[in-house]
């Protein structure tokens, strides 16, 4: 795995952690919760090396 690809996975994990924190902190909007989860999908799939 190249250095760039490793950096990409680290970036994915970091963004996912930010989104997860947002999801936990969100107190008002259900729409925002759903949108946060939708944004997480490609990041999770990539981290799991599914797609």
């Amino acid at each position, binding site marked *: 795995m190249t250095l*760039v*690809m490793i950096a*990409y996975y680290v970036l994915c994990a970091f963004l996912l952690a930010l989104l997860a924190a947002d*999801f*936990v902190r969100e*107190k*008002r*909007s*259900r729409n925002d*919760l*759903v949108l946060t*989860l939708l944004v*997480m*999908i490609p990041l*999770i*799939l*990539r981290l*799991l*090396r*599914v*797609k």
Partner: protein
Amino acid sequence: MKHEILVKSGLAAGLAALLIWGGLPLYRHRHFDLSIVEGPGVGDVMRLSAYSPGLAGTMADTSVFVLRGREPGGAALLLGDTHSNEPEGLLATLIFIENAVVDKGTVYIIPVFNNSGSRNTRAGDGYPLYFDVPTDWGAVRFRMGNRDASPLDQWPDPDVYIHYPERQMLSYIDVRNVNRTWPGRPAGPLMERVTYGAMEIMRREKVDVAVDMHGAETMFPVTNCIVAPERSVKIATLAALTVKAAEGFEDHVEPSPAGFRGLSHREIADHSATMPFLLEAPIPFLDQPTGPKTTKLLMDGKDPFLLSLAGKKKLFVPYDASGWSMDRRVGQHCSVVLEILRQFSRKNPGKAIVIRGVPRYADIVRQGVGHYFADPAKADAKKVVRN
């Protein structure tokens, strides 16, 4: 928000279910292996990483089958699944692996040349993940891959792919297209390491003839043909004329363009002593103006939209209601490969490559491709290769 924990738990569970429902089929496809039964002619099975160590441990590493003749002679290399959405090359090479007996010379066969691409999909085009080939003992399942390697294995793509060594600027996506990365480098991008491995086979094993088997759209001008550079054009012409006269199908000769870099027929000729050929069989599944991309369309090649376009003379091949079946496409490839080897052997008797046991066009059209595949469940487990 009322019932916050309940809502968040429910949404997270929904996301998990969605990921499993959508992701599991993709994960299974990527890790689905073909079972290839070694035929009577197979001597050794190696990995391409033996010739290109940079492939070791990657999804791009793939099996190389070696069929050694009883008598010395020339050497040939057959490639299938260069583009894994053109499976006629894969099926033709499997017919050779499972049926061929080599009397003279040596034949190297790489059935899944772009192993990473064969584990990739083209979801946006609605490609099926698998296709089944009926056999005498049941259906055998194959991965339906994509033209390019998976980004999981080679990433990121550059803005422009600068070909090595000619430095011609190609489309960014071509860095993952194993028919643009010839002749390759040992430590280049993953697909360059794949082509470098094949070049090393040709250089080290003194391969005389290399045949790269593809499929091409009926609306693409370079279809139903043998693409040959200057060095190969005489043999290609003789093969095309012979199959037309003796077996009744067209397969014209197209010259390999000297200015378009990265293609197997161009770079093999320019960077080795091997005589390359690229075979294109018409595959209606790849055409844009068709109905849904179903396995039925892949196998029988029948499409009402193409039929209508054929009536308006928009296709580059004859096309009628009988379509252009997988059996025809694979049959063409088998016959043309056999004819290329026969013509080469006639011209170079000291380097003859003589093969028997491989069916020709009419046999495959009559019996079906699957008739020539062995049942892995009934084969000696030591003779079954997973790829």
